[in-house]
């Protein structure tokens, strides 16, 4: 196994170099057989990486502790599921998974039927292979996954208990899929530039890739938040930790990209900007990895100090400089066909504002994340930039973003006349003002909440009107029943209506954020058995404290009977888990969720006489975060679904070369 694992990495490395070389030579001397050989190489590289991952999974499953990685991240009593999940618990394992996805994507492009005969393929493959080469070098010489120990330990160190949660298993995988996914549009953009194809072919070609990468990034972030909410016991879901920021930044720039490409498709403008955005998004994924792997900033996600981060920083530098060089060398071509705007108030300008705000938000996150380093460098004083900073700075930017999102669908392309504006916005504006007044009279009086919910009402109404008018227009011509008209309307323009579903999902998420940030309630009390805590409409009675053993872990739990408005909701058990092979205990929250609010119960401390301290929180509207997330997934999948009316992958019409 040692031999097989290592061989697959070094053979993979050699094959990667070989494939890059034959692609470059093949392109230079225009020889199709060399290109075909390179394509074969891509598939072979993928097989090597698949074998390496399979070997590692086998070693983890069979607890072969003579391997440093296996011994560092697993122990024999761990359930098989978590043993396998340890593949992405450490540095080298997670990089191996990353490389697997990267080589898988490259192989998918090479074998794709739609890409046959497309001269961009050798270029795209070479660019992705250069990325793969970097990972193989790291795996082969810096962070070796199959390194052996000098001795065979009787037991492994075990997996960090924090990671032993289903959400934590999926969260890193989805994030990696998102990170790696952004490499694909980046490679397409670079290949298009090198081939001097300055039309929007590469954008149309990679539309689905970009949405899929964006969806995975979104999911990765949401699942991380969900995990933090149920596992960390602090009642929050987003802590603006440097690593969370690192995955939020490419999400923001990728969102900006998904919108600004529409201007390029319609008006043939913003070409340089779009390419810059995709370079930036990909560079930010590498920057994120640098943050996680370097230990340069304090973070709960850090993989520990290693010099691996430095390699990522250097690689990021090389990629960015290379990409900017390619962009500059084609700048005159991109510049040539700049279009024009008809009016200040139009969908185009709202997309520009959207881009400004999203990139601005990304910059604010970036600035806050690196400010501790800046401060230390400039005046030698360390500072901490935490939740209050990011909440204060991001809230106005993102709320304005929500407003633009609400306004944009009803603005016309080209020009919105005053009449058009009045017709479209009078009803939403009146309704949201009425909503705001109602909120104030009903007791929701915090400024942020009222303004935020006002904007959300505006968004719902404008989006509803968009569907309503579409259906009405269809029915005027076709006399179809409403559901059929709605279905046909949506399936005929999947991207647009999928996008609207995503918008509504984001609005739900924002509802959850505003509610839970502004109206959460919390209390902490020490109780004797039989005593109760009252919070809001809830009465929580402490019944008993017990201990049970699960494998090598000891679990202390309390039975809490919960009543709401006098009605019994049941018995809940918040727990503290003490691990046989880990110093820190972990918290298992007891949760009662409803559409309106979550009752969040944490067992904090206890005494031998049976008294126990509980932290009880009421977090309003948390469920909307998860409902909104599901809608984002539905909307994204709807947008990329191949339907009868879709023309997602257009035929290549760019510069023809002899090899493809």
């Amino acid at each position: 196994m040692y031999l097989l694992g290592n061989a697959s990495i070094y053979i993979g490395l050699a094959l990667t170099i070989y494939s890059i070389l034959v692609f470059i030579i093949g392109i230079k001397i225009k020889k199709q057989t060399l290109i075909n050989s390179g394509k074969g190489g891509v598939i072979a590289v993928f097989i090597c990486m698949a074998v390496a991952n399979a070997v590692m999974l086998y070693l983890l499953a069979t607890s072969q502790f003579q391997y440093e990685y296996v011994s560092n991240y697993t122990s024999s009593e761990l359930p098989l599921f978590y043993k396998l999940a340890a593949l992405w618990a450490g540095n080298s394992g997670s990089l191996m998974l990353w490389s697997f996805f990267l080589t898988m994507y490259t192989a998918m492009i090479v074998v794709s039927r739609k890409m046959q005969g497309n001269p961009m393929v050798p270029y795209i493959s070479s660019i992705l292979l250069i990325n793969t080469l970097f990972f193989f070098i790291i795996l082969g010489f810096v962070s070796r996954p199959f390194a052996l120990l000098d001795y065979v330990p009787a037991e492994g160190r075990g997996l960090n208990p924090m990671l032993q949660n289903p959400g934590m298993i999926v969260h890193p995988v989805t994030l990696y899929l998102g990170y790696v996914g952004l490499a694909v549009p980046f490679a397409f953009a670079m290949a298009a530039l090198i081939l001097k194809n300055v039309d929007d072919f590469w954008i149309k070609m990679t539309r689905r890739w970009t949405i899929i990468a964006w969806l995975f990034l979104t999911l990765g972030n949401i699942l991380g938040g969900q995990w933090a909410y149920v596992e960390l016991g602090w009642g929050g879901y987003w802590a603006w930790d440097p690593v969370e920021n690192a995955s939020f930044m490419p999400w923001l720039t990728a969102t900006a990209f998904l919108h600004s490409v529409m201007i390029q498709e319609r008006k043939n403008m913003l070409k340089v900007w779009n390419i810059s955005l995709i370079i930036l998004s990909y560079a930010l994924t590498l920057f994120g990895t640098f943050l996680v792997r370097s230990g340069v900033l304090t973070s709960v996600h850090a993989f520990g100090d290693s010099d691996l981060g430095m390699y990522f920083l250097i690689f990021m530098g090389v990629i960015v400089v290379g990409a900017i060089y390619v962009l500059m060398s084609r700048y005159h071509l991109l510049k040539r066909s700049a279009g024009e705007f008809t009016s200040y108030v139009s969908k185009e300008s709202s997309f520009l504002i959207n881009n400004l705000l999203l990139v601005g938000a990304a910059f604010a996150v970036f600035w806050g994340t690196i400010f501790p380093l800046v401060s230390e460098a400039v005046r030698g004083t360390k500072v901490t930039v935490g939740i209050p900073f990011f909440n204060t700075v991001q809230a106005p930017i993102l709320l304005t973003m929500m407003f633009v999102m609400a306004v944009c669908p009803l603005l016309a392309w080209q020009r919105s006349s005053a009449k058009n504006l009045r017709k479209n916005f009078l009803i939403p504006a009146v309704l949201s003002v009425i909503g705001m007044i109602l909120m104030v009279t009903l007791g929701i009086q915090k400024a942020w909440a009222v303004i935020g919910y006002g904007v959300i009402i505006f968004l719902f109404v404008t989006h509803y009107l968009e569907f309503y008018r579409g259906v009405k227009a269809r029915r005027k011509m076709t006399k179809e029943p409403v559901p059929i008209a709605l279905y046909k309307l949506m399936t005929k323009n999947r991207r647009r209506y999928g996008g609207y579903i995503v918008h509504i999902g984001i609005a739900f998420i924002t509802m959850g954020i505003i509610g839970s940030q502004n109206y959460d309630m919390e209390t902490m009390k020490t109780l004797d058995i039989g005593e109760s805590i009252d919070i809001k409409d809830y009465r929580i009675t402490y019944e008993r404290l017990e201990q049970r053993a699960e494998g090598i872990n000891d679990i202390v739990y309390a039975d809490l009977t919960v009543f709401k408005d006098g009605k019994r909701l049941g018995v809940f058990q918040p727990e503290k888990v003490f691990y046989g092979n880990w110093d820190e205990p972990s918290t298992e929250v007891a949760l009662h969720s409803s559409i309106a609010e979550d009752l969040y119960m944490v067992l904090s401390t206890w005494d031998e006489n049976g008294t126990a301290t509980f932290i009880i929180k009421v977090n309003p509207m948390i469920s909307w975060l998860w409902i909104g997330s599901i809608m984002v997934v539905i909307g994204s999948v709807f947008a990329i679904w191949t339907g009868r009316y879709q023309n997602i992958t257009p035929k290549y019409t760019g510069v023809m070369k002899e090899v493809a």
Partner: protein
Amino acid sequence: MNKKIPIVMLILLFGLQSFLLQTHATETQQQYDYKSAEFKAVASQFMCTCGCGQDHYACDMAGCTNTDAFKADLIEMMNKGMDKDEIREYYVETLGEEILTAPEKKGFSLTAWVLPFVTLGGAGTGVFFLVRRWTRRSGEIQTSNEEMNVKDEVEEEILSSIIDEERKKYF
């Protein structure tokens, strides 16, 4: 008449906001314990140093060795009558600015707060001038189209898709 509606709405919106801010400022606060609003305001200013990545208000004492003593100190200072700002100044002097969960809004640290908005403002102005240039260029080209009546976009799209479908049927 046409201009009056947006003006009235703006006035309403601003009036509403100032009303909200006022009500917010006069909200009554409860007696404080470790989870009271007053204690939250004080303790959430300080970062817990046990590695939990949370502030002293949020840190759950069971897993943390030093928040217990820190919280007790805070309560003691609050009992002495020190307010939130005095307590902050005391800790910044003794432990340095790093103890705060967010940089101070003065000196060099102010740049942390200001720069994102300055950049946004600068970039926004840039975008404005860019759009103005593009609009002017377009104005020069098509002055005669000034009164172009833009048809409702959705209708146009539906119409074209139906025409397309019909065409496919017959040809």
